């Protein structure tokens, strides 16, 4: 049976979520992430893209290209919550949802076509439900496999042109039999797995489009790319891809890491950052009803060498004090004099939070019940927000500042760093609002 795979990609997701709460910025170039000295751009509005600002670009370059853009701090917690709402809409149609990131996912709707209609119908229903309920737009590619579906969603996207943003088709379907016609005109660099090196090699032998690739001699390809990659690319070039849509698997590790605006040398400052991350990791462990038997401390020095130190215990841990008890002895092994640029805490060997009770647990007075304390913290946060309670180490001039989920995912964050920088801008206000 020919499969129906959808690739749903939210349009300028982070920016669109920000615009919902700051509608006055609509129509202006908006950049999320990169507000700090060492930041990178996490997302750019279509208006900003007209100035050549793209995600993953260092913020310094983005500022040069588009100095009048509004730079916003990322609010990962908000995007994550919104992403969950989007996933709930996907789940109305199929349980076979494979998230790729917060803003895109594959859906296998092969088995539910008789319930909801063909792939185009399902794609359009998903688009309209996301638009009606969340006021967000997305683009949907539908095809017999993941490779083509992803290419189709790109074709469905709004287009940035010199004169402005042209709306996209919204849903693009590649029907069985249309694969070649769709693929062959595309530049060969659009294929997954064709990086700069491969592209250079292909172009050296005159292969510029996917059509060129499909028509290329197998022996020639193998001599240029090696047998394995040649076979792989040749299959993609004719639109063949049999990878299944795999619903999210249980994660193997949970981690937080932070790059600092200024390298850290002070023992106490380092410890405070670790406490903050231990709290963040512990909170996410408990949210997933998990506990970890291995805790790893990661550090990157000013010279970019990275070290990791791990400790594994018999009894799994899921509270910040228990994680700190394991990490604290590792802190002494850091070479602080080299300057610490990045710190991270990783929890792995995850499992259910079983705990072998000991006779000490029977002694209510003597026993430090970190589990009960952790449950109380989770309860407070679920009612009053993440910033309502946290380790004292996360206290700074602005109040409690615990880790928000992957808040630092797009680079260092000067305003929350151990040393505040002076160049505050309007994003500061945004951040506070996000915390309220």
């Amino acid at each position, binding site marked *: 049976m020919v499969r129906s795979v959808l690739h749903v990609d939210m349009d300028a997701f982070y920016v669109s979520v920000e615009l919902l709460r700051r509608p006055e910025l609509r129509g202006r170039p908006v950049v999320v992430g990169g507000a700090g000295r060492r930041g990178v751009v996490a997302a750019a509005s279509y208006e900003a893209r007209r100035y050549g600002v793209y995600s993953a670009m260092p913020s310094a370059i983005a500022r040069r290209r588009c100095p009048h853009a509004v730079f916003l701090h990322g609010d990962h917690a908000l995007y994550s919550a919104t992403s969950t709402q989007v996933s709930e809409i996907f789940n109305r149609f199929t349980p076979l949802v494979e998230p790729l990131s917060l803003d895109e996912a594959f859906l296998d709707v092969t088995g539910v076509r008789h319930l909801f209609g063909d792939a185009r119908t399902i794609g359009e229903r998903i688009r309209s439900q996301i638009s009606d309920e969340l006021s967000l737009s997305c683009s949907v590619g539908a095809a017999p496999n993941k490779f083509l579906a992803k290419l189709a969603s790109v074709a469905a996207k709004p287009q940035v042109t010199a004169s402005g943003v042209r709306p996209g088709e919204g849903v693009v379907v590649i029907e069985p039999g249309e694969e070649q016609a769709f693929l062959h005109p595309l530049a060969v660099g659009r294929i997954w797995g064709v990086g700069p090196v491969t592209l250079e090699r292909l172009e050296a032998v005159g292969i510029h489009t996917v059509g060129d690739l499909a028509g290329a001699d197998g022996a020639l390809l193998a001599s240029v790319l090696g047998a394995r990659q040649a076979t792989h690319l040749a299959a993609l070039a004719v639109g063949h891809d049999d990878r299944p849509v795999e619903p999210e698997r*249980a994660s193997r590790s949970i981690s937080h890491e932070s790059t600092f605006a200024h390298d850290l040398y002070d023992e106490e400052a380092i410890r405070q950052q670790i406490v903050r991350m231990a709290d963040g990791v512990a909170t996410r462990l408990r949210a997933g009803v998990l506990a970890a*038997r291995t805790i790893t401390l990661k550090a990157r020095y000013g010279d970019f060498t990275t070290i990791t130190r791990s400790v594994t215990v*018999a009894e799994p841990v899921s509270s910040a004090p228990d994680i700190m008890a394991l990490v604290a002895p590792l802190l002494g092994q850091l070479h602080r004099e080299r300057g610490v640029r990045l710190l991270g805490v990783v929890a792995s*060997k*995850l*499992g*259910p939070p*079983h*705990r*072998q*009770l*000991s*006779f*000490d*647990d*029977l002694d209510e007075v003597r026993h430090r019940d970190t589990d009960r304390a952790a449950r109380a913290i989770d309860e407070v946060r679920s009612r009053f927000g993440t910033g309502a309670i946290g380790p004292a180490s996360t206290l700074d001039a602005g109040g409690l500042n615990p880790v928000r989920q992957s808040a630092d995912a797009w680079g260092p964050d000067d305003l929350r760093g151990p040393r505040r920088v002076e160049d505050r801008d309007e994003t500061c206000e945004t951040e506070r609002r996000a915390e309220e």
Partner: protein
Amino acid sequence: MKFRCERDILADALVTASRAATSRTSTHPVLAGLRLDVSDDQLTLTGTDLELTIRLSVEVGMDTEGSAVVPARLVTDIVRALPAGTVTVETNSDDVIISAGRAQFAVRPFAVDDYPAQAGPDGEPVSIDAALLMSALRQVVRAASTDEARPVLTGVLISADEEGLWVVATDGYRLAVRNLGAAGLLTSGQSVLIPARALSELQRLLPAADHVSVRFGSRSAEFELGTTYLSTRLIDGDFPNYRNLLPSSHPNTLTIGREALLEALRRVRILAQDSRVVRLSLGGEVVELTVVAQDVGNASEAVDARYEGAEMVVGFNPDFLAAGADALDGDELTVELNDPGKPVVLRGVGDDDYLYLLMPVRV
């Protein structure tokens, strides 16, 4: 020093004494050695790490009396590898020469004067039946801790009161208590705390003996079994008041075949890899044992049982539970429960002298 001895007899003696020698020799390298003393056709071998000492004597053919301290591991390996038959050991000015058939080894010894002197016996000897002591140690030593961070729990308590002699160990998660009745090792009110490691070594020596002569001194305990002698320092410190841990009542009781439970545990724990928990679902004619290993699979087995009490699911470390069931005597055992967060008591049906208290795993 020069003597002859059958290879197998010498090898066994070396292995036994070596168990007290230590490989952790940073401060006292000589403790990696065994002291050999020959006189009156007797070879006496001594191994010690200053906490545990094992000494034994074997008959040998003596040419010259004398003493030497030889590297324990090395000489044991050499003697075991020699051809069967008579082994000759002698010292010359520099080396200890070990030979058998046409094989010969010269081994650099330690200085005899560096070997620590052994204290003489301390206290009055008391005799106890070796089989009785053996049974108590088998049941109790397993519950002692191996975590040196809590030294008191690495010991086995032997104490006497008006109810008789008690042998007790706990690692903080489980507790094993055996009553030896009027065994008379101690007078009422006395107690000693003996390192479990020393008692594990004693367990290896006991099957060869009928009676054990025991001396408890203020700092050490000594056990004599014929020509074999074991002494150990005692542990300082107060053993936890374990009687407070024993539940005063138990509304729920499971009665189950001991071998059936052990068999089922042996099977399902194959899957209890990282999670290390087996769930017991109690409430009917059978007990359901379940192990769920994330990303691996699961296992379950129903075992016939009698249960009186409230329905509940309680989790255990399968190794701890099996160790308790294995320690009990009798064909059937009872598990006395309160709730899934409170300790349970395992007893052999018809055996009032032993109990095994175990904390559950919170699931």
